[in-house]
């Protein structure tokens, strides 16, 4: 049985590598469509990590919503709004490079120190389990108001996007 544990551990590190290089690619690439591609790779890695956190449903939702919807919307936005050659010529070098490096490194070390100094104690008693049945029940019974509010937010976002996006690129 132990060999399966090691195989899953190797796969875990493969997902971490996906997250790592996807994140690096999405902030460091010159062409904006490559950034979107890196974002998709990074989200796929996070979806793999959700498997290890005992939630295959959230993993599928991550792929469905983030990779399938958000990245596609971003690709559409890039395709409608820009042409890649313009972007590649204009943004060969980012601004605020030193500020970005300094803020990134300082935040990383502060938060890592916080993680390693803290004591995380598991809960004494657990209710429910990781099944989809329990998730759906608590979504409908306990978090019903938030469930309705999120649908209202999505409706408002769709209407607002339609109103803001009227007119297209406006070339003609």
């Amino acid at each position, binding site marked *: 049985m132990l060999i399966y*544990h090691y195989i*899953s*551990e190797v796969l*875990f590190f493969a997902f*971490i590598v996906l997250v*790592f290089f996807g994140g690096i690619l*999405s*902030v460091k690439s010159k062409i*904006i469509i490559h*950034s*979107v591609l890196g*974002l998709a790779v*990074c*989200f796929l890695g*996070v979806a793999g*990590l959700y498997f290890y956190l*005992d*939630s295959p449903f*959230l993993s599928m939702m*991550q792929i469905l*919503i*983030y990779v399938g*919807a*958000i990245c596609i*919307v*971003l690709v*559409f*936005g890039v395709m409608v*709004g820009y042409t890649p050659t313009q972007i590649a010529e204009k*943004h060969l070098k*980012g*601004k*605020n490079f030193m*500020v*970005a*490096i300094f803020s*990134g490194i300082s935040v*990383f070390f502060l*938060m890592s120190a916080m*993680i390693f100094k803290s004591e*995380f104690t598991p809960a004494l*008693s*657990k209710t*429910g*389990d*990781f099944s989809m049945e329990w998730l759906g*029940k*608590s*979504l409908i019974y306990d*978090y019903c108001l*938030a469930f309705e509010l*999120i649908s209202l*937010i*999505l409706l*408002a*976002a769709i209407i607002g996007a*339609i109103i*803001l996006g009227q007119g*297209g*690129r406006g070339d003609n």
Partner: protein
Amino acid sequence: MFFSQSLETYLLIAVFLFVTGIYGMVQHRSFVGMLISAELVLNSAALNFMAFNKFTAPDPAVGQVFTLFIMGIAAAEVAIAISMVLAVYRRYRCDDPDNVHEMKH
């Protein structure tokens, strides 16, 4: 001792995602690039919720519900932000945040 069974591994990955998002947000190149960085930050928050949900939370449904809401919020945010970016591009003919001055005043 497996790394996939310790909370600190997931927290470190989430910190990495957060830092990457902050880096991309500060080193802004374009509106869409900043939007991508915001997505990274949101995703790191969701990963944190899922990690604490597995290892410390008394009810395993809370973190999953929260992560679902973060996904919904992120989808709404991207829809709004992309249409705003297109509107700004239509008006100013550029996507550089430094060149869009009039909205600041």
